[in-house]
């Protein structure tokens, strides 16, 4: 006999499932289909099934090099976010300050302002006539503006301010689930605070660390605003290429092919990550 209520979870899930299906799965299928189409010299798209768009991507090293740069920048962003995110997350875990809720809201605060505005505002800080140069000039430390924009450093800065909250929150959630008596038990057994951190807190926070890293990596691979606004000509990432092909030259078939490649690559990375870093294993041991 089947459970009479087995339809209920599906009924509850159906609004979000249909939204995901209609707004995500179907468009992605369109993109995959488009990637096999031909582009007529006149500019129109011709339905077809051929691998020309993919061949074009690998024919010129310029395109794969963008993909490689994207992965490199994404890894740099992950490392920076991890180093700069763990410390505040740990602080939130340990603090008993009554200002903790206020500080937590400050972490969320950037989400209330448009990503574009936040990215653009860095021009006012890092630009030739921006805040930093203005102060340095005024203080007489430099005689001409010190160029900080339109390079990879500025792009990383833009990515960091966008992604750091995701990393902090992921690590914090994981840390927050760790019973503080575990550290007390470890120190009572002869560990120093630092040894207890290494033995207990750090390993138990790894699920959050790894979720945060994965999220930051994937989001970096798909973002085009920081390179577009803060980067120079040599700082384009793969999403900028897609943006330029589809929005700039209306070349849907080629743009779709690059999108499909990026999707496939990220899919493989997420799968491998899950499988070999054993995220599920770590979760299991957390009771």
């Amino acid at each position: 006999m089947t459970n009479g209520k087995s339809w209920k979870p599906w009924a509850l899930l159906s609004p979000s499932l249909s939204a995901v299906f209609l707004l995500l799965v179907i468009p992605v299928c369109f993109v995959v289909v488009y990637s096999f189409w031909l582009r007529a010299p006149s500019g129109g798209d011709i339905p077809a099934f051929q691998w020309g768009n993919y061949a074009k991507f690998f024919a010129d090293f310029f395109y794969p090099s963008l993909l490689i740069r994207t992965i490199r920048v994404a890894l740099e962003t992950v490392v920076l976010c991890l180093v700069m995110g763990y410390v505040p997350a740990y602080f939130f875990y340990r603090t008993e300050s009554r200002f903790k809720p206020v500080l937590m809201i400050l972490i969320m605060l950037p989400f209330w302002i448009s990503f574009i505005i936040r990215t653009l505002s860095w021009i006012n800080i890092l630009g030739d006539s921006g805040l930093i140069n203005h102060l340095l000039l005024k203080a007489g430390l430099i005689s001409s503006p010190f160029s900080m924009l339109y390079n990879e450093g500025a792009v990383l800065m833009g990515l960091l301010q966008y992604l750091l909250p995701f990393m902090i929150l992921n690590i914090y959630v994981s840390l927050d689930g760790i019973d503080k008596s575990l550290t007390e038990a470890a120190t009572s057994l002869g560990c120093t605070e630092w040894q207890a951190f290494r033995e207990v807190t750090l390993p138990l926070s790894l699920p959050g660390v790894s979720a945060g890293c994965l999220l930051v990596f994937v989001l970096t691979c798909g973002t085009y605003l920081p390179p577009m606004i803060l980067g120079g000509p040599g700082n384009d990432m793969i999403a900028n290429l897609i943006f330029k092909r589809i929005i700039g030259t209306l070349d849907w078939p080629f743009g779709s092919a690059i999108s499909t490649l990026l999707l496939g690559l990220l899919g493989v990375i997420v799968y491998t990550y899950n499988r070999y870093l054993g995220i599920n294993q770590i979760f299991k041991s957390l009771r």
Partner: protein
Amino acid sequence: MLKKEKDPAFVKFRGIVKRFGKVTAVEAMDLDIPEGALVTLLGPSGCGKTTLLRMLAGLESPTHGDIIIKGKRVNDTPIHRRNLGMIFQNYALFPHKTIFDNVAFGLKYRGIPRDVMKDKVLAALEMVRLPGVENRMPSQLSGGQQQRIALARAIVIEPDVLLMDEPLSALDENLREDMRREIDKLQQDLGVTTIFVTHDQREALSMSDKIVVMKDGRVQQEGTPIEVYNNSANHFVADFLGHSNFIGSTVEAPENGRIRVRLDDGSSFLTNPSETFNPGDRADIVIRAQKFAINHRSDQGELAGMNVLSGRIRERNYMGGEVSYYVELANGEVIHVINLVKRNPFRRGDDVTIAVDPENCRLLRELP
């Protein structure tokens, strides 16, 4: 063999005060813990018992006062150098380590060689009667088993003092009794000085060598379970250790080492005073519910020398082995009586007499 003299003050608290901001958790505490004894800190939540334990562990530092272990002041010794075994309410096993690594944890930080470590860990698991689980993860064990592993982890380092913070309160009722006996036996076998924090008077009475009853950061009474139960020093202790009746009375005169008092309803009682009283003083007679014998009013048997009251049963609660009665006296006062079940328990509305030996009528000064 000459047995080494046990130190009666193996752990000493001297003038301990602990404040959290404006809140005082522990107030002017002086306490000695004898070597090898199991001492219970008993009290309601917020009485400062856990704070006291955490100060001894080194997890909190006292605002004033000294903590001395084995004659050495440890106020400034960090927790990891105090050599204490700590048991937590929620077990606090490391979920990402095997049982072996959990138990071996303290040994690792004491630089014990691997092969010695292995023997010690296996022996400790044997001692808590869980051999063969060393390769499992904590989540694969039940709550009771996890607490036994926590016990093994704490005793394997041969601590000077074993500290237990409500170790049984997360366990089921039946398991709790088994675990309590387990801890009791292990403590006696090892002879390790143990401080046990609990709010459960039955746990405290059944396993302690000494009970320290606390309230509002102060010691109310310390003594053996029998002393604190039979000679409760004040109303709080008498009430906290279970089912006491407080009956208002006026002191009349001493009589053969006892004191005769007049109850508010006019009856006359002989009582067993813990301090001196003058005629005319107001006093409360403290009588535990279990000390009364209940009889039908028509059944006037062996009541010579007993203090007797009569009333009517207003409420009856059957509890299996015993029955709890609430007997209303003529003046409306209600007395709680707990008796073993005899052939036929009394029923609601029965007219009864309740009798109590003067020995079991403690006299305490009336609360202001």
